[in-house]
């Protein structure tokens, strides 16, 4: 039998605010346990939540970026369950009235664009962490993370392969970082994914029973976990079994998913509107203010790069993958006065390769936009050749000197003085009469020998076009 897969993703993004969603405690990662958990985060008796404006703003920014409906009226609800990392015994979340309604995101897989619907995105508070190291057989609870703002982004079940799921997740990851609403750090848990996976016989309309896979915290694992789950479900059904609706945990060490029985029992969350919080009203003014400050979105920017800078699709895609990279590129074009294509080649080529090798992000680049532009300007005004530029680039990476300083210090300036080039060529022709004869008798290949000799003599600094021209004239006699 042929099977079809249906995947929907729920992605939890930690919003990059300074303070928590309902308290003034810091959200900084990596602090000593419980040093960033204030009375509100600990759920002490009598304390009350007050909503962080920036969390709301960031949710609205996201909604606008996916062309979603922004709810003029949204409410917080309590989701009730007992767990030691959930101090109040309920999580403040949104149920019936989420802040972001239906929107969409376009993904590309194997050159084909597919539109994935986003059902909703809602604000909620993160839970703390349970530490299972040995405390005499007990578990330690760190509530620093409790109350960190989360935007839970729920997709429609519209992905049909692990590959599509990864493409969607990457696109979303790129978007939230681009918008500056989430740092996207997956190791630190800033961007987490749960996948709802089901299979059905090809052509069947109704969905199969789905399993929810929790705790997938890297792109690699998402693909592996989903593929593993698809195989498990197909195998199960083909052997006469039935998929049960359950939560499964992905174990990256064993590369398998296993049932989380502990979370299964009594899932009656008893949602109801949180009486400590009032409805969040988002008026036109608030939206207009956000819209005015909304960055140009990746898709629009890519189109602009293709038209304004005449870039090919690949370069435009790479350059608009992050705001920092596109800003860097545009600054280089502007400052250097060079052709955009040349700038794009250097940014996506040598610079990206060097950054990759050193495992650095663009905003950590040892060569800032100004210094790279300084070098590109010298290529454009023929002070140096593209070949010499590679040498200059190396120096830029190592030192803090400007391109001009490096060119002057190392004497890399290209020689365009025809008199000097002619003198050298005359000398080389005089010293290599045999080769001159060969060339004149029709052996064109010998020409390269002469170019090489000239360049060697001039330490690569001669303008190659000029050398070619003069050599040709002289050799023809």
């Amino acid at each position, binding site marked *: 039998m042929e099977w079809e897969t249906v995947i929907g993703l729920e992605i939890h993004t930690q919003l990059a*605010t300074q*303070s928590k969603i309902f308290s003034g405690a810091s959200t900084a990662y990596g602090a000593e*346990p419980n040093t960033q958990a204030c009375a509100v985060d600990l759920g002490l008796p009598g304390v009350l939540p007050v909503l962080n404006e920036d969390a709301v703003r960031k949710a609205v920014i996201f909604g606008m970026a996916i062309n979603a409906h922004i709810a003029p009226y949204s409410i917080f609800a309590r989701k009730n369950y*007992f767990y030691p990392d959930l101090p109040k015994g309920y999580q403040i979340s949104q149920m019936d009235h989420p802040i972001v309604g239906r929107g969409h995101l376009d993904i590309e897989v194997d050159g084909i664009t597919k539109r994935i619907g986003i059902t909703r995105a809602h604000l909620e508070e993160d839970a703390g962490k349970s530490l299972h190291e040995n405390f005499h057989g007990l578990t330690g*609870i760190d509530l620093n993370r409790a109350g960190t703002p989360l935007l839970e982004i729920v997709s429609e079940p519209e992905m049909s392969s692990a590959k599509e799921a990864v493409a969607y997740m990457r696109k979303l990851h790129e978007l939230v970082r681009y918008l500056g609403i989430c740092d996207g750090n997956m190791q630190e848990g800033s961007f987490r994914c749960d996948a709802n996976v089901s299979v059905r016989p090809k052509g069947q309309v109704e969905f199969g029973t789905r399993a929810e896979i929790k705790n997938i915290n890297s792109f690699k694992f998402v693909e592996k976990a989903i593929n593993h789950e698809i195989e498990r479900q197909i195998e199960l059904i083909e052997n006469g079994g039935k998929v049960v609706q359950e939560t499964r945990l992905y174990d990256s060490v064993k590369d398998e998913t296993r049932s989380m029985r502990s979370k299964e029992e009594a899932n009656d969350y008893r949602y109801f509107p949180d*009486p400590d919080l009032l409805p969040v009203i988002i008026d036109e003014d608030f939206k207009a203010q956000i819209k005015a400050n909304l960055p140009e979105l990746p898709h629009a920017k890519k189109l602009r790069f293709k038209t304004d800078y005449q870039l090919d699709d690949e370069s435009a895609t790479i350059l608009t993958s992050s705001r920092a990279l596109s800003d860097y590129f545009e600054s280089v074009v502007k400052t250097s006065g060079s052709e955009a294509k040349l700038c794009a080649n250097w940014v996506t080529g040598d610079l990206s390769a060097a950054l990759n090798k050193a495992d650095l992000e663009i905003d950590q680049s040892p060569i800032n936009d100004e210094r790279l532009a300084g070098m590109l300007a010298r290529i454009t005004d023929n002070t140096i050749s593209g070949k010499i530029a590679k040498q200059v680039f190396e120096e830029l990476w190592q030192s803090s000197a400007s391109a001009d300083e490096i060119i002057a210090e190392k004497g890399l300036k290209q020689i365009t003085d025809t008199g000097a080039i002619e003198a050298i060529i005359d000398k080389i022709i005089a010293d290599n009469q045999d080769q001159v004869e060969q060339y004149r008798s029709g052996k064109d290949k010998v020409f390269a020998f002469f170019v090489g000799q000239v360049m060697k003599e001039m330490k690569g600094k001669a303008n190659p076009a000029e050398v070619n021209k003069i050599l040709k004239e002289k050799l023809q006699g």
Partner: protein
Amino acid sequence: MSLTTNDVNKIAHLARLGIETQDTESYAKDLSGILDLMTQMGELNTDKVEPMAHPMDQAQRLRPDQITEENNRDKFMAIAPQTEDGLFLVPKVIE
């Protein structure tokens, strides 16, 4: 509407609330009595009425995104039943 002791046990578990076995019966009776009081509500047609969650018809106020809280861990740990190395301790959590 009347609740059985079984219902009471189910609700009590949902609320993680220990109740003595010998009291279950009386809770069932009390809750059933309270639920009888509730049946009056059903007599009124409220199809067109908007539920009211709050007496004040107001919007949620928003707080500027500023860190206003400092580390008070020692103060909070001092009132906790069991702690170690700055952590609250609970029986082993099995996932």
